[in-house]
């Protein structure tokens, strides 16, 4: 007799917890050929708002951690992903109809991206900051700081796991917290990634992952006054100009749609930072 399997219930990831959508809605996740895989939570406006509240609450702790500490936490994510390879490979093969080698390549690249970004946490300030030679008796230093809460539409075309990692990792490097809408049709690896995040050293609320319809959720995030940045990487198929217009109401920083998966770059780290310049008088001695 064959064993009856225990299918997994996929939920949202908000504030370090795994709630169902408060709306009680779910949607069907299938293979590319249409075979049923799971029901995922269909996040609502209220879920998005709860996620922003959780992300805001986590800003001071995460941005206040040392770069050295944040780097170790990001590296820890890579370690845990590495330990759960088989699960992710299986999920990617099922949801994206990938060959084993293609799924493995995507996972490897995602793990390596965490490692690459982990190394930036205690270095990006040196690259993006500046001592300024002002004409006068002043100490003058410009340093980048995280913008705050970044709302993200993850890439929607392919590479559901790598796309997600490519947009959240750079935002986390400087100490931002994120609310991200996962790949709509292949959300399973996103929720499995939340299990990795929840059991790594990432504080609750630093990453909040919503599954469901980006077209439904993104407008609420774009107009939310407590969101500081809007990454429209995966919004090509949405009315993204309207999202950008909504974001202008609170002068959010906006990054536009990208084709495919954004390559790792220090620019993606720096785009979610502000430059603070401190002047201090020097005494005459």
């Amino acid at each position, binding site marked *: 007799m064959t064993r009856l399997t225990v299918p997994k219930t996929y939920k949202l990831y908000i504030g370090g917890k795994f709630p169902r959508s408060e709306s009680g809605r779910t949607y069907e996740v299938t293979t590319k050929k249409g075979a049923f895989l799971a029901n995922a939570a269909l996040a609502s406006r209220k879920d998005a708002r709860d996620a922003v509240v959780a992300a805001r609450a986590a800003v001071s702790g995460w941005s206040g951690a040392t770069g050295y500490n944040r780097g170790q936490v990001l590296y820890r994510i890579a370690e845990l992903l590495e330990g759960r390879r088989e699960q992710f490979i299986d999920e990617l093969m099922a949801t994206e109809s990938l060959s084993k080698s293609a799924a493995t390549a995507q996972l*490897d690249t995602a793990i390596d991206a965490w490692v*690459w970004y982990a190394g930036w946490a205690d270095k990006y300030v040196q690259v993006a900051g500046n001592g300024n030679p002002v*004409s006068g008796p002043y100490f003058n230093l*410009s340093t980048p700081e995280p913008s705050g809460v970044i709302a993200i539409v993850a890439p929607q075309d392919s590479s559901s796991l790598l796309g997600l990692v490519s947009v959240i990792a750079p935002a986390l490097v400087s100490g931002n917290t994120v609310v991200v809408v996962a790949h709509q049709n292949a959300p399973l690896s996103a929720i499995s990634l939340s299990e990795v995040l929840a059991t790594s050293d990432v504080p609750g609320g630093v990453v909040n992952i919503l599954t469901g319809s980006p077209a439904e959720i993104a407008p609420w995030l774009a107009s939310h006054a407590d969101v500081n940045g809007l990454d429209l990487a995966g919004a090509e198929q949405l009315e993204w100009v309207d999202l950008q217009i909504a974001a*202008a*109401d609170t002068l959010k920083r906006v990054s536009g749609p990208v084709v495919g998966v954004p390559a790792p770059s220090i620019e993606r780290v720096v785009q979610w930072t502000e430059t603070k*310049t401190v002047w201090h008088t020097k005494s005459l001695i």
Partner: protein
Amino acid sequence: MTENDKALSVKAPSFLDYAPAPESTSVLHLKKHYGLFIDGEFVDGRGDAFTTISPATEKEIASISNANSADVDSAVAAARKAYDRTWSKLSGADRGKYLFRIARLVQERARELAVAESLDNGKPIKESRDVDVPLVAAWFFYYAGWADKLDYAGLGPNPQSLGVAAQVIPWNFPLLMLAWKIAPALAAGNTVVIKPAETTPLSAMIFAEILQQADLPKGVVNIVTGAGDTGHALVNHPDVNKVAFTGSTGVGRAIAKSVAGTGKKVTLELGGKAANIVFDDAPMDQAIEGIVNGIFFNQGHVCCAGSRLLVQENVHDEVVDRLKARLSTLRMGDPLDKNTDIGAINSKAQLDRIRELSDIGEAEGSERWTADCPIPENGFWFAPTIFTNVSTSSRIAREEVFGPVLSVLTFRTPAEAIAKSNNTPYGLSAGIWSEKGSRVLAVADKLRAGVIWANTFNRFDPASPFGGYKESGYGREGGRHGLASYLESAGWAAPAVTKGGKK
């Protein structure tokens, strides 16, 4: 005190009385009418010309062309042609030489520019002469040197210019804002169409003459004068690649909406409501001067003005008393007088706005104190004013007054000072006064503002980035970061990706 006694007390002779010392206007050779500066020539605008007046006397200075959308089209076309044919083909070294030339010519005509600026804007000549114009020259000198060093700007090798930059600047620092916009744009290899504010176009017109003297290639800089419609036509022109705006948050928001989806790179320097935090161990003599400079410099028409004074409760009375004594020595009057500390409010509209918000402050229960200055009969004037007992919810503590009005609030602990400072949608600047360096650094870390002055205020330098957090806008001006606002990276090398555990 009767009215008669008051008049006598004002006129009573004292060692503080100075004879008038007006700066000569003989250095200024104004034309009766100024046209638009397009493709290296002055041409008449197609809109109805308008008159620019002296806010200190309400006397007419000159008539100015008004650019309509067809004029904006010509200016953008001239900038595009200059970008394609000349400026983008020039070596960085040659672009730098032009900027050095401009810097020198600004220095040579410094007095003339300062007089024109004070006449048109109403700011005291000591500020236009000793702050604005020297900084204008410094800005061109600083960015001149960057033009052939773009590979070192931190954007990777061979960063690219953007194309035609549309720039709209405010009336509070007409010439300085022009320099902040034009110098980095040209150094990075862009061409420019700039619109000065309608109340202060004069110094830009003299600057255009300087560009002719510098023999800057035609069309590299174009100046279109006019009001909001001209600015609207300019930033929304389909053939501009970059929009740079300094001004109100309201207009900045509208610009951010109108350029959404166009791919234009945008930088916005918007409003502020800076907290100036005074701890009880502050160097008090310097702090009083710094507070005065923070809010009464340029009649308070400064987006980064220290308009919210946060004083530690135990030194509140001392600080307020000393401030009142200091303000009573300030001289308000003729902007061209070398002894003037406080000049004229830039326009009737701005004066009305300051009066309205001050009245609201009083109505909301704050205590108003105004320095006892004689007010000239003509022109737009507002005497230095302090509000005490201001609550954090009061409109004068939340909205940008953009005038010589200081709101005083108190705090007990550093944590409270930080919370109150950050309790605003703005985040442009902040001040900290304390002798304790470790406290200054800890507080500076927690303030959400782009520029923080510790034991000083309102310092500007071309090498130092300036710009805001939150709704004070995005992008930086000044320094290497300011240059980056006019460049895009040619692409960073992606890291090597390992496959199957092998390189």
